[in-house]
């Protein structure tokens, strides 16, 4: 129990990053059935964006983080959009080809990062207003940076919920996810919706990357550490399901952090994988699915 309580803040922060990574994946996977293996590298590029703004452009650390968020969103969003337009679009309905192709693109992006920034990890200092933390009764210490990541993830979820339910593109997205043919004969340009979805989903990867600079060092393989977990969140949470993704991300984050507190990292992974396989045996459709009368 102690382990759980002590690891709770870290677990929540990791869960929040997983959530940001998985939200984007859920869109591209849920809407287009595309397994974008380069999504992890978009996270990495988001993290390096924060680094470049601080170390190369020399922005004041006090506000460099806040500027990095929209800049990373735009950069990785544009990259994802270009990726969809130039490559992925031509491989819809061929999941294995897409998987290998985006895996290759991910490798190229990693090498590009290695050539540009060097193989060793770099650090992005947190702004002064995020150092320190609060100590709760019972001796649990919560870093402000962890709280910031949590708040960032919550803000993104609210923004996405608003987008999905209130905006024109959001409604079209939900229509395309549900039934692409019906969307097309309803006058929706599904190709255009796909491109916009890829932009938003990839942009969220950039935000996840910026958040990760607050948790640890940044390196070319940063994304690969999170991509598998992010996919697990998508599968467990259910496709196109915001609630499920949120719940799955935090559960996985906390599970990872607590199991790691009393087992070593690889054993922890094994235990978490086993738990997920057991869960998917019981509920292959994920936590939540769309209610239909046919199912009830």
């Amino acid at each position, binding site marked *: 129990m102690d382990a759980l309580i002590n690891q709770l803040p870290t677990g929540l922060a990791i869960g929040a990053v997983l959530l940001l990574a998985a939200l984007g994946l859920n869109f591209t996977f849920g809407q287009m059935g595309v397994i974008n293996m380069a999504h992890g590298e978009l996270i990495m590029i988001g993290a390096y964006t924060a680094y470049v703004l601080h170390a190369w452009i020399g922005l004041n650390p006090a506000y460099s983080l806040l500027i990095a968020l929209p800049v990373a969103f735009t950069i990785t969003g544009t990259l994802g959009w270009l990726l969809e337009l130039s490559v992925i679009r031509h491989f819809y309905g061929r999941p294995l080809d897409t998987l290998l192709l985006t895996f290759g693109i991910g490798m190229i992006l990693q090498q590009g990062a290695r050539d540009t920034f060097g193989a060793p990890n770099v650090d992005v200092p947190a702004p002064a207003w995020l150092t320190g933390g609060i100590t709760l009764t019972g001796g649990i210490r919560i870093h402000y940076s962890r709280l910031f990541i949590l708040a960032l993830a919550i803000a993104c979820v609210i923004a996405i919920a608003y987008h999905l339910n209130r905006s*024109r593109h959001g*409604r*079209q997205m*939900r*229509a395309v*996810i*549900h*039934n692409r*043919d*019906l*969307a*097309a*004969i*309803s*006058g*929706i*340009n*599904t190709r255009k919706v796909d491109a916009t979805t890829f932009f938003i989903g990839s942009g969220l990867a950039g935000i996840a990357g910026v958040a990760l600079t607050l948790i640890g060092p940044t390196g070319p393989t940063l994304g690969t550490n999170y991509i598998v977990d992010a996919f697990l969140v998508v599968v467990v949470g259910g496709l*196109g399901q915001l609630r499920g993704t949120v719940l799955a991300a935090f559960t996985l984050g906390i599970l990872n952090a607590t199991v790691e507190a009393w087992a070593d990292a690889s054993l922890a992974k094994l235990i978490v994988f086993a738990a997920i396989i057991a869960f998917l045996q019981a509920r292959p459709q994920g936590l939540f699915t*769309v*209610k*239909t*009368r046919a199912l009830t």
Partner: protein
Amino acid sequence: MNTPTPHLSVRGLSAGYGRARVLFDIDLTIEPGTIACVMGRNGVGKTTLLNTITGLITPTTGTITHNGTDITHLAPHHRTRRGIAYAPQGHDTFAPLTVAENLHVTHQATRRGGPELIDAALARFPRLQPLLHRKAALLSGGQAQQLAIARALVTNPSLLVLDEPTEGIQPNIVAEIEAAITDTAAQGITILLVEQYLDVALRLADTVTVIDAGRIIHTGPRTELTHESAHALMAI
């Protein structure tokens, strides 16, 4: 010179799924403002024909002309935007969206008129009015079919394509749907209807086309058919 252009003209159309050929050399002409009814037994290719006309399937040969324009290779959303509305078989709706969202997303995407189109569609199907904020997934079959037709009507179509709108629906709702089809036709909208119930088809149709095994085996004005001769055609 002065022969009016047909509203829809299909010439030498063949289509299928991958290697499986389903439709062979289909010719179909629909005059403006008429109700054309396509009939035939299960699996003969009626839905495939409608899917090809609305652009969901690309034909292997043949042409489709709408109001004099060749639309054979036009994307489905462009066909909807030029006035071809489609309510597919099985009262398909956007299940996770509310009734209101189903209508709005279609209305906004097609951009063929103002909000009065939504009011008109709801006036046409008043049963949908109290359900506006309910998810389409939770509608009954009859309600979903009404939403499916309303969703097609908010695109302000010149051609309304309906695939078995009365399939599996209780008699009093069938009567309402029939009335909606008659009213829509009375507004001058051309209708292409696939209908399995002989009674309904013969009440509504101006022309009747019968398909068997992917080929047209009969086409002509409704007046040429008696209940018995139609029944005989369907039993082939």
